[in-house]
Structure formats: C-alpha cells, structure tokens
C-alpha cells in the first residue's frame, strides 16, 4: 500500500483538514519535514495561534513571512535534509489588507476601505475570515513562489467543512446580489445614507437604525461604496483559488483521531471533496491506541501473569491483577477505536496512516521526524 508521504509525492500543494485537536498542525509539519528530508524546497503554513509549530521547528517566532528552519537546528536533531524546510504563520488581518490593496483601483480607495470600522471588524472577527485568507495566502504562495511543496495547516474551525464554505460565504457577504441590485442607484448617487430611507420604505430604514444605530448603517454604506467595482476582482480570484484546489497537483490530507466527532468530520469532508472532484491524497488517524493482543485469543487473567512475573522477580503481589485489568481496558479501547474507524477506512480508498498515541507529545524536530516515519 502506498503511504501518505508517497501519495503526496508528485504534488505541489497539500491541505491538512480535520476537526480541532486531532493533530493537524503536527501532521502538516511532519509531512513538510519528510519531503524536505528527501530533497525539495518545502513550506509549511499554519495559523496555529499556540505557536506550537514554531516551537517544534526550533524557531522562536513565526511571522507572516516565510522563514527557513536553520540547518544547524535540523542537524542537532540528527537530520540531514537534502532539501529546505520553510515555515510561516498566517496573519489574517495582513492578508486581508494585502488583498484589498491588490484590488483597489487607487490608493485613496484602498485607504478608505482600510480605515472603515466595519472592514476592520470584518477582517479580524468575521466567521470564515480566517479560512478565506488561508486559501488566499495559499494561492498567492503557490503562484508567486518556487516551493516544490506547500503544506497548509487549516484553521481550527468549529466544523471542518467551514474551510471550503468560507470563501463563498464571504463573497456572498461582499457581493450580495439583492443588496447590490437594490443599492446600485443609491451607491451610484453617492448618497447612501439618504437614499437608504427610500429602500423598502423609510420605516424599514428607521427600524433598522433602532437596532443598530445610525452609525453602523453609515459605516456599512461607506464600506459598500468603497468596495464598489472591486467585487469582480475578488470573485475572479476566488474562482482561481477553487480551481487550484481541484487540480491533481493538489492533495487534501484528512486528519482525524479515533474520537467519534473527529471521524464524523473526516467522513463529511471526504464526501464533500468527492462530490466536488477535489483530490484526496490520504488520511492520517492520530492518537490511536495500539493493538497489543490478538482479538481471537482470550485476554490473560491475573493468575496467568503471576508465574512469569515471579520468574522476572517482580515484587508487588497484586501487580498481575493490575496488569490484567490494564490490558483488558487497553484492548477494549483499541477495539472500540477500530470499530469506529472501520467505516471511515472502508470509505476512503486513498493512502492512510494509523499513528499510535505518541508517548509524550511532539515537541521538537526529532519528534516530528519520528512522526513522519509513520506517515
């Protein structure tokens, strides 16, 4: 069977997706490291706010620009890469600002949008904003830079599918057809605040103002007006991003744990990728309880452990009982996990890796390299 690493072999973009807390960041970094070891210029891009990736890679901090993991750090971990490993942490606000700057027809318009209070809140806090910007940055990096492979660690969304839906939601937000049609004359006249009163009757506008306050409406009008003419640029760009995600040189890596919720997310994501003809490169299941005892054989009772324990000069008299109970619990968990995973593994034809719960978390490059071996 091919490994997840091999399955990513010819690809230029890898997107790690999955529920929160399943080890996406670690999987992304391990995949990037393994390609760098084989030769190739590789970038791993995260928005992990815990800066754990930076720590694991031996970098003090990660910023919105790429930084190379120093060779001596890799050497200290006993690693001799034939390629280069780069890392960066996505800055959502900066990426938004860059995007606005790219599409604004002139500096005045750019500044007007960047100053708008609604824009400032939207770029920082709007649901889906992070996901949209992660894709945007990925596209920019894959077109403007010469990496052999870019691995994207996706944001910790409440639901993994948010990652694919976010751009559409934001675009809908920016370019809502109804609003545009209704607002076009008012926007054209440049007197949004006044003309709003005529839309749907003055009563509607007044009632709306009762909820939000007049200031919010003025900000909104100012924002939409500033944004006029830029929407098509945004939309075109989003289309290109989507096309990039569907290309064969892209591969999604589903990351899950044996927890029911994580498996459900992975399945839902897989269905969705399949429906949209987006390429799945593999599945990584982290934190698996290792299977230590053949299922067909009855588990050992305490008495059966007593003799070998005595032979090994093990001391405490109840150690056998505690070990028998521990093994039984362990195997019950291992069996339950494998039952929950069976459906997912059957559904996903792509390469998969089952990674046992590491004894201690991955803190450093050596740990990442050990993880990479499992992938």
């Amino acid at each position: 069977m091919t490994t997840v690493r091999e399955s990513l072999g010819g690809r230029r973009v890898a997107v790690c997706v999955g529920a929160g807390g399943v080890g996406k960041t670690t999987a992304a970094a391990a995949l990037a490291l393994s390609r760098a070891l084989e030769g190739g210029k590789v970038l791993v891009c995260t928005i992990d706010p815990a800066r754990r990736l930076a720590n694991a890679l031996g970098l003090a901090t990660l910023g919105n620009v790429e930084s190379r993991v120093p060779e001596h750090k890799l050497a200290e971990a006993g690693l001799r890469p034939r390629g280069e490993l780069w890392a960066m942490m996505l800055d959502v606000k900066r990426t938004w600002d860059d995007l606005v700057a790219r599409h604004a027809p002139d500096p005045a318009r750019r500044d007007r949008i960047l100053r708008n209070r609604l824009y400032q809140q939207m770029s920082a806090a709007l649901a889906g904003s992070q996901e949209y910007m992660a894709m945007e940055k990925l596209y920019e990096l894959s077109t403007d830079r010469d990496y052999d492979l870019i691995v994207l660690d996706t944001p910790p969304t409440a639901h993994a599918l948010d990652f694919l839906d976010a751009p559409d939601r934001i675009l809908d937000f920016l370019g809502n057809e109804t609003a545009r049609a209704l607002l076009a004359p008012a926007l054209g006249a440049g007197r949004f605040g006044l003309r709003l009163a005529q839309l749907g009757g003055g009563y509607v506008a007044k009632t709306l103002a009762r909820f939000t306050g007049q200031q919010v409406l003025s900000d909104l009008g100012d924002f939409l007006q500033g944004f006029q003419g830029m929407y098509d640029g945004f939309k075109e760009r989003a289309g290109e991003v989507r096309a990039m995600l569907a290309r064969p040189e892209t591969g999604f890596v589903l990351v899950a744990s044996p927890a029911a919720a994580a498996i459900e997310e992975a399945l839902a994501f897989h269905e969705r990728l399949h429906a949209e003809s987006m390429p799945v490169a593999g599945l990584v299941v982290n934190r698996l309880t290792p299977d230590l005892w053949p299922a067909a054989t009855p588990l050992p009772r305490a008495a059966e452990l007593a003799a070998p324990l005595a032979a090994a000069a093990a001391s405490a008299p109840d150690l056998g009982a505690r070990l028998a109970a521990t093994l039984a619990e362990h195997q019950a968990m291992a069996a339950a996990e494998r039952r929950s995973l069976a459906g997912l593994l059957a559904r996903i034809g792509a390469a998969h890796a089952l990674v046992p719960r590491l004894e201690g978390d991955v803190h450093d490059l050596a740990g990442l390299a050990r993880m990479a071996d499992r992938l």
Partner: protein
Amino acid sequence: MASFGLLDRRLLVVTGKGGVGKTTVCAALALLAARAGKRVLVCEVNATRERVAPLLGAPASGPFVREALPGIFTTNVTPHEAMREYGLMVLKFRTIYEAVFENRLVRYFLRMVPGLAELVMLGKVLHEVRAEEGGRPRWDLVLLDAPATGHAVQLLRVPSALVDTVPAGPLRHDAEWMQALLVDPARTGVALVTLPEEMPVNEVIELDGLVRGELGMAVAALVVNAMPPARFDAGEAAELARLAAAPPPLGPAAEAGRIQALRAEAAGRYLVRARAALDLPTTVLPLLPVAEWGPAAVEEIAAALAAAPPAEGRP
C-alpha cells in the same frame, strides 16, 4: 449536595478547548442541579448537531425549549430564531416584525453587522437568565454549553464591544444590561474544562486570563476531565518498561501497563501545572473507559462531580 456552590449562581458558562468534554460536564451538572430540586435550562449555541438532550437520553430540542428530563430543559440557540425572538420583543408586533425582518435587504444588513448574530444568541440566553414567571425566576440555573475557547471569548465579548462602539440606543441599552449580568460574580460564573494534556492545559491557562482580564468575568471552577488513575508507582513503571519485551502474555500486559503509567505520569504533571497556574477550586474527574457516550456515562460523571465538587473559595 447542598454545598455544591458551583450551581448556586443563576448562570454558569461552561467552556474549554474543543474535545475536552464540555458538553458531558454540562449535562452532568444539569443532572446534579435537577436532583437538588432546581429547575435548569441548558443552552447550546448554534450546534450543528445537538448533543445535550441526546446525552440525557432525550430527543433533540431544536431551537425551542423542551423538557429533556424532569426539571431539565434544553435548547439549541440559533441566530435565525434568536433574531426573530429579539425582533419580536423589540417591535412588539408580528406584522411589523415580518415587514421589517423578512425584508431581504434588511436580512442582508443584519448579517453584515459584525457581532449581531452573537449578540442576539447571547441575548436570548441572558434573557432566559433574568426571565420571571409568577414573581419568581423562570430558571433556578441556566447552563451555557459555550463554544470552544476562541469562539466562546468572541461570543462573550460582544456586549462589551458594543458598549464601547455603539452610540446610545436600544442596542446599546441591551448590551449594557447583558454586560452587567455577565460580570456580576454573584449571578454569573465560568467553569473551565480541560484534559490533563499539554495543549488543553496551555489553552485553559490562556483562557482563564482572557475570561478574567478581557471579559471581566468570574471563573468559578476548573474541571480536569478524564484523569487516568495512578495505577503503578515509579519503580513499577521502570520495571514494566523492562518486562514489555517479555513473550506473551506478560509482554503485552506489561506494555499496556507501561503505556498507562506513562500517560498517568504525564497527566499528573499537567494537572500540577494547571493547578499551579490557575489557583481555582478544582475537580478532577476520572478517565472512564467507555466507548459510547450516553446517559450511563453522564451518570458516572455526575457521580464523580458530586463526590468531589470544586470547593468554593481559594484552596
């Protein structure tokens, strides 16, 4: 049970990193409160798949308030339904609400205002907290099964953000009473849930700072969930590492023991770290070897909570 002070507030917000067992703890707290004779409402926030009612063995309640078990009511607060209720409350008349809120342009605007969805959802929850029926509070306790860390802070920050940015008016007025309720330690507390693992502990320490500092809310307790038992002492753990290479049956049994000992030892370290950093009334819940999360598991968690409730005040 009478000393279970955590449940004596009017609103208890339960939050923590994703996957640490917030919802299970919430359901168990609801059971304990109901058994102490309280009328309880458990609110989930815009859950794609409701979990509290099913954990209690009841069908999902949807956006309406339904009784899951005697004395325990559940609801899933959605932006759409909360907006409708809020609109009706402010506008008083359904026809006016429909004329305004069902207007496509208005709906677009309402979606466009950052924080408004959070505000109406939180508003719905807090409205339930202060609601009265027949001269007494409608609920003795409202439990908010809040979203995970970042999203929870975003939700709870909305009233103060609006107080800071919105000029006087009805929205500002609502934000003010909501904020006052949230920061009143007599009425509102936050329970932080974590696992004795590296990332969840890091996150809960950071969250504690945000809740006290940025949100100005009182943290009532820390719940450390899924603590593995310390089954082997240090000497035995070393011995097990040696025996793990033995042939079956001892080898695999020793390996299982070795892994358990490592986990328990690491969990112990992270627990010490959380306690040292947080100085909060703390409850440690045992790791349950269950594959299915349902009413039986919730009962076990409730029993563990009742056996060792977080003590009030600083230890």
